């Protein structure tokens, strides 16, 4: 009888880490050719360019890994293979935050003058309002998703998320009407998600810390998450405290999503697909998924972002990275779907 042995775990883990590091290096070596040409430059870049690429590839890796982690946690928590970090209305919350920033940001900036660090953070664009919006939406969903007795209930959570998403969409439209003439409609660009070399290094480090904290926490939940895939009563009888497990999964997923939104905005699909792909390749054991899904999502997002970064000349300017994650990830996902009979 084959058991998931320590040996197999180690092999999967070591090779996943190795591939991630290799892809990271590869992405650093790829960039756009000279302006106007359609070539892609491959090779070790000069140090100032390398600095820019490090920020961007690093941000992509962090955002991807965080999405992959949040995807595993939420699919496990909601027992729903279609869950992803944005099903719970988190992305919609962040968009509302950014929209509110576009409308009211000027006034806010003025009131913040005199606090240099606050000024600097706010000048760094949309990360802070996005986080505030995402945080508010997450908190609301959390409050609404509890049953009597305080335990999070998967079905109530999903429904609350859908409703919060809808309300968020309405708020975005409402705020859109209040945008003064002359302000740019940055929101269009924001909603697709993008990763920038201009991301403040402080934010990148903060996102990395948040992700690592969430990851470390999540790695201790693997075994319990496996058992929580059974019915509530069975999980209970096997020694799982469902209320605290669900709270931890939710909180850690929210932290990881926050890390990703900080550096990349609401990039969809990555968090949905990477747990699926890893489940298809290595099985549903969460102890293994919690390692492979973040790493494979990081690889996927780094490659996608490197593609859009290097091919601006092909598409009359850079594509939003969400276009590539959906166009490449979608068919691959469908291939896996047809190859396996079920995706429970």
């Amino acid at each position, binding site marked *: *009888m084959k*058991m998931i042995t320590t040996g197999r775990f180690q092999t999967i883990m070591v090779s996943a880490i190795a591939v991630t590091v290799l892809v990271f290096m590869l992405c650093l070596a790829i960039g756009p050719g000279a302006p106007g040409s359609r070539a892609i430059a491959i090779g070790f870049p000069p140090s100032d360019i390398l600095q820019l690429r490090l920020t961007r590839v690093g941000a992509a890796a962090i955002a991807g890994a965080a999405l992959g982690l949040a995807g595993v946690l939420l699919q496990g928590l909601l027992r729903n293979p279609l869950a992803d970090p944005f099903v719970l209305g988190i992305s919609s919350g962040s968009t509302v935050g950014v929209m509110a920033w576009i409308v009211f940001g000027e006034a806010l900036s003025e009131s913040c003058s005199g606090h240099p660090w606050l000024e600097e953070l706010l000048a760094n664009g949309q990360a802070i309002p996005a986080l505030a919006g995402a945080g508010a939406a997450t908190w609301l969903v959390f409050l609404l998703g509890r049953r009597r007795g305080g335990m999070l209930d998967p079905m109530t959570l999903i429904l609350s998320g859908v409703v919060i998403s809808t309300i968020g969409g309405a708020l975005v439209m409402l705020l859109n009407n209040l945008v003064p003439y002359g302000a740019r409609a940055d929101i269009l660009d924001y909603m697709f998600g993008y990763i920038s070399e201009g991301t403040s290094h402080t934010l990148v480090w903060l996102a990395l810390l948040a992700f690592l904290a969430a990851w470390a926490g999540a790695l201790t939940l693997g*075994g319990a998450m496996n058992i929580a895939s*059974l*019915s509530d009563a069975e999980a209970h009888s096997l020694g799982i405290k469902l209320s605290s497990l669900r709270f931890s999964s939710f909180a850690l997923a929210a932290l990881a999503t926050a890390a990703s939104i900080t550096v990349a905005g609401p990039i969809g699909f990555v968090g949905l697909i990477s747990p699926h792909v890893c489940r298809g390749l290595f099985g549903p054991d969460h102890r293994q998924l919690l390692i492979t899904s973040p790493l494979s999502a990081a690889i996927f997002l780094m490659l996608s972002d490197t593609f859009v970064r290097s091919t601006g000349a092909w598409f009359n300017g850079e594509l939003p990275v969400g276009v590539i994650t959906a166009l490449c990830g979608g068919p691959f996902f469908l291939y896996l779907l047809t190859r396996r009979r*079920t995706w429970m």
Partner: protein
Amino acid sequence: METMIYNDIPFPGEAAGTVVLAAQGVSFYYGSNRPAVEAVTASFKAGELTMIVGPNGSGKSTLLQLLLGHLVPAAGKITAGSTDITHLRPLARAALISYVPQNPEVSFAYRVHELVAMGAWARQRYLSSSSTTSTRASIDAHVITQVMWDLDIHALADRTYDELSTGERQRVALARAMVQDTPVILLDEPSAALDIWHQLELMERVKYLARHKHKTVLWVTHDLNSAFANADEVLILNEAKVVAHGKPRDVLVPSILEPVYRVKVEVCNNTLLFSLRPRQG
């Protein structure tokens, strides 16, 4: 299978006849005012197989989930030894009580061996601080293999859950409970989907666990004849209340069963025969 010793659970001792699990005036409501379980008082002894019978909706499964500690009684309390089970740590409770549901559910495509191994999780967690962890893990691996042979699912070890038939799923859930190896075992119609050979096999195995390992087994069933032939004790529930609790021959009698089940009951050759009463009017 050797039995583990747990230090901080209120393990009530293995001597047959000791009261292990007791419900005192337990009531439970599912939202509405109609009780699902009302003022149930009963005690269950080590080494006894108690079969719980009763018509549909009489509260059998609810009582089982209350005894498991998954549902919290609205009134009364459930004690294991001298401790209220709602005060037990989840891991300690998992070391004390195992449970096989009526319809096992699994959300992802786990393989059979992974599902069976989940039975050992709490024990491994519970003992993870002790120096014997690795020894324990290898013992568990041995136990898991043994149980899968015993329940005839060894050949299915690498199948995923969605590839199994209902009966096979039920045996997987049973195997997990066996691996959990607890002094108290709660079974909710475990043989409902099993073929006759597996039914008889399971009954022999459970009787062995009760008689020789002094396990306390509670078995919810609709099969009154099986209860008549195999149970040490029978608990009859009707409309959320205990109607009778005692030896099968004392409680599975026409005078008790007929009003509960609204059928005509005859005893013939140690077998209960049932027939519909002629309609009145």
